[in-house]
């Protein structure tokens, strides 16, 4: 007769990793030289930070109201563009 199998003991779950920034996507944008208007290719990554702020390139939107403000402005622009 075989040995009885030991009861299954659930191992404690590993501690959750600390929150980290999350890359939502990258926008193919161009950076415009204000002097001569010449564009230079400049990818614009959009991040959500661990503090619930939104980072677009060098700009950091820490106020959620500003995120909604930007969404509203983009909706207005899209409506003007009729997209």
């Amino acid at each position, binding site marked *: 007769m075989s040995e009885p199998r030991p009861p299954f003991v659930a191992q404690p779950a590993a501690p959750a990793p600390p929150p980290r920034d*999350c890359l*939502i*996507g990258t926008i*193919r944008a161009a*950076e*415009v030289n204000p002097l001569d208007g010449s564009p230079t290719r400049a990818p614009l990554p959009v991040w959500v930070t661990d503090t619930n702020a939104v980072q677009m390139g060098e700009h*950091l939107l820490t106020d959620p109201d500003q995120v909604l403000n930007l*969404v509203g402005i*983009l909706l207005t622009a899209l409506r003007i563009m009729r997209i």
Partner: protein
Amino acid sequence: MNARAIPNPQAIHNHDDVDLPFGDDWNHAAAAIHAEHAVTTRPLYVGSITAAQRGVQGSVGVELHLAANGAWLDIGPFRLPARELRRLQHLLGIVAACIGQRPATTPPAPELTPEAGRGIVGWDLARTASELSDGGLSEGEGRP
């Protein structure tokens, strides 16, 4: 027509910056056409946001300008073509959902203060209603 006297309309941002030539070679008709072209092709201001910027103390204002022909949108120094603008709006919609700041669909809960829900402080609606039903008070009486 003296082409040198007419500045590039795309470069005109402030008419005060334009050096007007004086003399007999000034072409009024061409200047008017170019000035109108400069106005009609000037980007439209559609709004601004307040953001922080790395290496800059405090907050900065980022203006958004839309091309008059709708071909692109400037967000500060960055220029986005129309298709990327749609993509950015989609991404920010996801972001707004992630951080839980979607517009509220229900009114906020009333504040839990001693006077919450009582309306006018000191106004005893139940007592007033009771007295009105008894005929003791006429409407308007009993208000503190």
